[in-house]
């Protein structure tokens, strides 16, 4: 009889746990179906020099970071310091995707804040962004030597994400 009277209480606890988990999740963070898939290919002009093109194929055999940014994007400024730090550590090349921006504004932005990128490519109408499932700039992808996306960060990189996820992953991928 005593066990039976506990049943509603247990049911209540289960409900509380489920609601608790639900409340602590970020509904903006949609798990990307692209993780562990081949990085979509494209071929677009670079930002600084439009006569040069870039395709993810060019990075075959390297672990690299693909970072989506824009000069109009406020939170990109938040992560900028960490990108510069990553560049400084020389763990992996960072290729930027300048998403739906104006060339002039982007170049000014990089001049003012420092340029963490090996180079950036210019996605004027957002087509490359759509192929990468970008829905909120900034977004960051870690791509391995065979061109598979191994990690995606939605929103700005934080110190924690850099130290606990991105850096160790690059080191691990570089070893293989």
């Amino acid at each position, binding site marked *: 009889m005593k066990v039976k009277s506990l049943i509603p209480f247990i049911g209540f606890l289960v409900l509380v746990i489920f609601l608790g988990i639900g409340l602590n999740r970020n509904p903006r963070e949609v798990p990307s*179906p692209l993780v562990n898939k081949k990085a979509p290919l494209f071929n677009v002009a670079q930002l600084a020099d439009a006569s040069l093109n870039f395709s993810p194929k060019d990075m075959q055999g390297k672990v690299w970071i693909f970072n989506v940014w824009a000069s109009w994007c406020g939170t990109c400024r938040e992560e900028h310091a960490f990108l510069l730090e990553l560049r400084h550590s020389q763990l992996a090349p960072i290729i930027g995707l300048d998403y739906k921006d104006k060339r002039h504004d982007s170049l000014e932005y990089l001049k003012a804040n420092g340029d963490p990128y090996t180079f950036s490519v210019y996605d004027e109408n957002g087509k490359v962004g759509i192929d990468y499932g970008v829905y909120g700039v900034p977004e960051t992808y870690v791509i391995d030597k065979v061109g598979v996306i191994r990690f995606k960060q939605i929103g700005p990189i934080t110190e924690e994400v850099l130290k606990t996820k991105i850096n160790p992953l690059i080191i691990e991928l570089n070893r293989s």
Partner: protein
Amino acid sequence: MKKLFLIMLVMFYAIFVLAKEAPLLAEDPLVEQRLVMISEEMRCLVCQNESLAGSRSELAQDLRRELRELIKQGKSDAEIKEFMVSRYGDFVLYRPPVKATTWLLWIGPFILLIFGIYMLIKYLRNRNRHIEYKSLSQEEMLGLHKLLRESLDD
């Protein structure tokens, strides 16, 4: 006076000339119709409470442009859905597909319903067993008659 009236009339019509005509949505209303049908079933990722058809966010506009392109290429609804799902996941669909990770979502309510019915039946049976049918005692009978008579007298 007549002249003034004429000037006013001309000015009045000038307003209509100045007003811009609403830009055409697309050359092909059939494409537009299909676009609306498809994008109403999809979530806008920037404003998650809006459908892709209704959202005015820039990403939604870009995506509608892409979908319009796919429709013009003669892609089927399934192919267009696949285009979106491969990029943004099942989350973009308002009706999640039935598969291993979502079966609980689809069947769960029915399991709960069956469980509820089972509990109800069990409870009712149990309750029936505990109900004792007692007839009224002599005293209670007299009391009842008395009450009834009083209410009739009123």
